[in-house]
């Protein structure tokens, strides 16, 4: 549990972050979204005290972060950034081992942990561990950056535009992978992005920031259906809103008895995926199968479109 109270940062009397208060549940993903200059990165960097707050407090599990030494605090908080910031003179293994080494873990434990993380991030340990960062692709560098942030089993993970340098295809895969890893490890993540789609895809809760203030702090569906201000509304984007909303809804509740033509879709997909498939294949309904591949009914275009119009 992370409690942020009245967090403020001023530079030369000008507030970059103003009086932000927020509670972050353990094991959830909180996404801070905002345009550049909204203060979102400064806010993130105050959590691990890369920026010292002008006022306000951050408490992790009831302990005020100001009572710890800054470098000891940072060793307890994973940190992943846009340009990965891998140390170019160290191998991948040594990079991932950064924080465990700082904490003085025994050698064998570090080696085992590095191997475990590379496997978790779908990188072949024997092939990738001895390489230097410049020998990796952009997507691999980003994954090593995440592995390094996770290495010492931190209390929480701070991520500043972690996928910003990736092309759209690799980016989507990286987001899926992060989501899967987060669900598996139950990590607490605070992630900053300027991309509302990314925020909706990854966040359990989204904080929309503008001019240093949090405009709205709510689950993605609320941000879409009940934007608290004009700023939030403009970030959500009127023309994309229905599709973003559909992307949050699972197929399962709309499944009705019956059959339909063509290849089936799994219950794990979102309504947005189902709509895309209907448009592209010109079908009125799709057969639905469960995780084991057993047929469980169909979803129709009519049901889908009315589900995409949220109650208001």
């Amino acid at each position, binding site marked *: 549990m992370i409690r942020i109270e009245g967090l403020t940062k001023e530079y030369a009397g000008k507030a970059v972050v103003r009086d932000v208060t927020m509670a972050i549940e353990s094991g959830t993903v909180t996404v801070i979204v905002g345009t550049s200059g909204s203060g979102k990165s400064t806010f993130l960097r105050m959590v691990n005290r*890369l920026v010292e707050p002008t006022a306000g407090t951050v408490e992790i599990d009831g302990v005020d972060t100001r009572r710890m030494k800054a470098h000891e605090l*940072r060793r307890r908080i994973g940190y992943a*950034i*846009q340009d*990965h*910031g891998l*140390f*170019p003179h160290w191998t991948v293994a040594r990079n991932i081992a950064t*924080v465990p080494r700082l904490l003085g873990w025994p050698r064998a434990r570090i080696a085992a942990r590095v191997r475990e993380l590379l496997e978790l991030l779908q990188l072949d340990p024997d092939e990738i561990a001895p390489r230097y960062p410049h020998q990796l692709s952009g997507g691999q560098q980003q994954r090593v950056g995440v592995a390094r942030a996770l290495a010492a089993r931190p209390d929480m993970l701070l991520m500043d535009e972690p996928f910003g340098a990736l092309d759209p295809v690799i980016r989507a895969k990286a987001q899926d992978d992060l989501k899967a890893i987060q669900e598996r490890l139950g990590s607490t993540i605070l992630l900053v992005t300027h991309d509302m789609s990314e925020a909706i895809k990854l966040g359990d809760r989204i904080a929309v920031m503008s001019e240093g203030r949090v405009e709205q702090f709510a689950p993605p569906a609320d941000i879409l259906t009940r934007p608290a201000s004009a700023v939030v509304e403009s970030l959500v984007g009127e023309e994309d809103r229905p599709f973003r909303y559909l992307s949050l809804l699972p197929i399962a509740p709309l499944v009705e008895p019956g059959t339909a033509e063509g290849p089936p879709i799994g219950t794990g997909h979102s309504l947005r995926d189902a709509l895309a498939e209907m448009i592209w294949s010109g079908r009125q309904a799709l057969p639905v199968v469960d995780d084991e591949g057993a047929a469980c009914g169909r979803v129709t275009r009519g049901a889908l479109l009315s589900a995409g119009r949220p109650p208001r």
Partner: protein
Amino acid sequence: MSAVVAAALRFALVALVLAFLLVPDAFAPLLAPFAPPGGAAIYDRASLLALTVSHLLIVVAAIVPAVAISVGLAILVSRPIGAEFLPLSRAIVNIGQTFPPVAVLALAVPVVGFGAWPTLIALFLYGLLPVFENALAGLTGVPPAVAEAARGSGMTGPQRLLQVELPLALPVILEGVRISLVIALSTATIGSTVAAKGLGEVIIAGLNSNNLAFVLQGGLLTGALAVILYDGLGQVARLTARRG
């Protein structure tokens, strides 16, 4: 292929210099045409080997402290607490560079007397600037994302310096050392005007007695040493940079 040629040339040059230092008389026929009638072709008032060793020792004795102080100063002024001293440090090392070594010798002799000391002081002052500027460029040139990651992962100031900044700056620092070393090697020859033992002695003797053979062997030896050292340090720099 070019690497093989370079290695062969390197080996040949080192072998040639060693041969000349160990058995200089064998080269007398080559240099005789440049000696005046009846004059010696090979410098004979002191052992060339001893002069070369002394020359190198003076250079090393001046450059080692110059490197230590320049790198130390660069580390200091690249920290937040030392940033104020940057203009002052720049001014000091720049004066060292702009002050002509001959003038340093002239000023140092009345204070420390004749011998190796005036030369040491001149070379030391002359060697500061290239190392300082390169060390500063290397230490402040760490990519922002890397510097941010080092802080963000919880390294302390000294850990960042020793584990990240200095290793990343090392190739650039070595480049500065290389420049200082070569400048010092050639500048050390003028030290012989104030009685420092070195290869300048051979050149000056040649100039005084109108013996072109002496001037040639002193000059060529100094030049060959500069090439060997410059190349050798370049190899070291390449090794340290290869992983970056």
